[in-house]
């Protein structure tokens, strides 16, 4: 970023001229750009149908129970 200063030189003139010093109000550099950053997502939804293990567990338990029932029947016969 740049800024210019206008300088006036008074050489060999009377000092009274030099006393006519005036300062222009201070120049402020302001920024206009807005940014939105630092957005953090800590949890997300799984994809549809990604996890089906519950069904497998359920069917496995059913199979075990079936095996137990069949075995019990066999032994009673």
């Amino acid at each position: 970023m740049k800024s210019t200063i206008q300088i006036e030189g008074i050489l060999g003139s009377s000092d009274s001229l030099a006393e006519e010093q005036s300062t222009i109000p201070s120049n402020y550099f302001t920024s206009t750009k807005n940014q939105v950053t630092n957005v953090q997502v800590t949890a997300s939804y799984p994809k549809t149908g990604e996890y089906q293990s519950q069904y497998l567990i359920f069917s496995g338990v059913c199979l075990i129970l079936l095996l137990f029932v069949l075995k019990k029947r066999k032994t009673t016969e």
Partner: protein
Amino acid sequence: MKKILSGLLIIGFLGGGAASIHAAEENVNGTNSASITVNGSLGQDNEDENAPNIDEGSDDWINVTLDTANIFYTTKDSQHKTITSPDYTITNNSGRAVKISAEDFTVTSGNLDNVDALKISGADYSAAEKSVDLKTFAEGEFLTLANNQGKMNVDTDAQSTHANTTTYKYSGTTKDEYYKGKAEQTAHTLTLAFEALGKDGNPVAP
């Protein structure tokens, strides 16, 4: 044989189930809602040294107050041999230290033919005297100022360790007795370049 097969079947099902239960603990599944933590940062304030939205080294950090009209003059006491000026102030209002360089100096009216020496000088953040020769101008660093908390390194420096404001002035000499009986006015443009330093007080690589 049957017993072995059924045993393996049971282990397989239970093992797979346990693994799937462990995986389900880390993800949202089978529910119709989940909470998401979102930290939003809107807008920017370059006077806040911890402002989150401004890239290090960005021009958005630059916030400097300075006078844009200066004068220098010769003094009657020195029979117009000595050039001097009022003291002018530069203040860094930014949350980052700022390096100020003299990029260009042009004579827009008159000339400096009868000026032997002319320089602009001021104290930088460490109170060291810095100057730029305006007679034989060469582009270069002029001053570095600390941030508005008086820090060069935002993380490690204590508050008010360094200066964020300084004064500068013009000085020089004219040729022998040339201006003893002559008066001239000159006009110049001095271009200053500003560079926001990084959080550690060092320049940021582009």
